[in-house]
């Protein structure tokens, strides 16, 4: 009896400790409002200094869209957060295991293995999308379905791998587009460099560099995959507006975008080692309203960008095309 009582007390104490620990950790994850005493550093020429290495892989566990059952709740409950932490700890332990176990070898599936990937840590934020308030992509306008149909009609009779040109720009190592701050499987490094009149943004994935002039010069009519950018400072925030995207094959989160696509990014150093990143996607010919992503990037001087000259050994492309030819020779219908 006494022993059971002591055990119960110990269990309660442990439970309280775990719960408090979770709350502590959750509080640390809460979105920072920035310290009131923080003074944003300046470059020698007087612009706010947002330079640094800002990898986004730590956000991999936060989905772009919020699960519908969370409604307009932007943060997880302590219990939900604890579950994310538990999963992160499990993954971390599996990654660090020196010897393979049944659990790590018996569950192979046709997705990239863990050693290819950035894992990310548990976050209190429920979704990367913060607006609309339900954290979900807005409804698509009817023109999107017409666009999808037109693209399908243009491809009528073609298989997905008749030529390398049938494959995505991403697979072809051409571009991931300028939504590259959104975390992906790996190569989540980002670097910002500044010089008088320019801000340079580098993304590790697909080796992309964006050179943003700080200017109010009007946009041209020249369209490119990465679009045409204009930067300006609003207080300590860098605002980058980008438009003039090539629409061929362009898509965001699986939705083909229109030539009205306009992206507005805001970068604000909210403390010495944290950069708030905000991205507003405005494409009235695609979604019924603009939508916004926001998350805070931690500076990591130990995450230098490593060259990712993706095209040089892209055996995947020749393998994919060969696989399609073998399927044709075997008389398999094109998918």
């Amino acid at each position, binding site marked *: 009896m006494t022993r059971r009582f002591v055990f119960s007390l110990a269990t309660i104490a442990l439970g309280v400790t775990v719960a408090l620990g979770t709350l502590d950790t959750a509080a640390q994850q809460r979105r920072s409002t920035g310290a009131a005493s923080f003074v944003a550093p300046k470059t020698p020429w007087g612009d706010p200094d947002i330079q640094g290495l800002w990898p986004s892989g730590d956000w991999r566990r936060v989905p772009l869209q919020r699960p519908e059952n969370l409604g307009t709740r932007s943060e997880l409950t302590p219990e939900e957060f604890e579950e994310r932490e538990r999963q992160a700890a499990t993954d971390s332990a599996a990654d660090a295991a020196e010897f393979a176990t049944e659990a790590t070898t018996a569950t*192979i599936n046709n*997705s990239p293995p863990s050693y*290819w*990937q950035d894992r990310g840590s548990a976050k209190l934020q429920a979704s990367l999308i913060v607006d609309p308030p339900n954290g979900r992509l807005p409804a698509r306008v009817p023109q999107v379905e017409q666009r999808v149909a037109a693209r399908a009609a243009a491809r009528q009779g073609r298989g997905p791998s008749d030529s390398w040109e049938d494959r995505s720009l991403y697979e072809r190592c051409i571009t991931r587009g300028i939504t590259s701050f959104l975390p*992906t499987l790996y190569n989540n490094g980002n670097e910002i460099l500044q010089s008088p009149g320019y801000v340079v943004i580098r993304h590790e*994935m697909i080796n992309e560099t964006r050179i943003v002039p700080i200017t109010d010069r009007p946009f041209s009519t020249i369209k490119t995959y990465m679009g045409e950018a204009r930067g300006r400072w609003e207080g300590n925030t860098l605002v980058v507006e980008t438009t003039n995207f090539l629409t061929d094959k362009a898509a965001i989160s699986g939705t083909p975008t229109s030539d009205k696509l306009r992206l507005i990014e805001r970068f604000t150093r909210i403390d010495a080692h944290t950069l708030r990143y905000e991205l507003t996607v405005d494409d009235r010919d695609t979604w019924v309203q603009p939508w916004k992503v926001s998350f805070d990037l931690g500076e990591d001087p130990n995450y230098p960008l490593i*060259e*990712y000259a993706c095209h040089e*050994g892209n055996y*995947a492309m020749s393998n994919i095309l060969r696989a399609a030819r073998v399927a044709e020779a075997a008389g398999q219908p094109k998918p």
Partner: protein
Amino acid sequence: MKTTTNLFAAALMAAFALPSLAHHSFSAEFDESKPITLKGKVTKMEWINPHSWIHIDVVGDDGKTVPWMIEAGTPNTMVRRGFTRESLQTGAEIVVQGYLSKDGANRANGFSITFTDGRRLFVGGSAPGTPN
């Protein structure tokens, strides 16, 4: 020492495939219905983008040596996990679990790669010669 070879394609696999999120499509390149286990000796490691490739020699049941290519992760991630050019030496024996390429060539995706004693590859600090 004669390399023991174990080459088979399992008939069963998980009934679902997660969405392909890598920069290229797994399902267009590898056959999810053909999981494969290979045991062989490393002949070369290609540290190339977008993915590394490990070349191994596999001795078949008929005693013939067959070269295979195994797709591994991006060099960037592997380096960050402590994997270096010293980690996988020519001649090392490894066991690969993965998926056969769709064109039927001797290529596979390396989902799980271990040394023959069960130590895992690509885990920071565990591969021989890598810093902890």
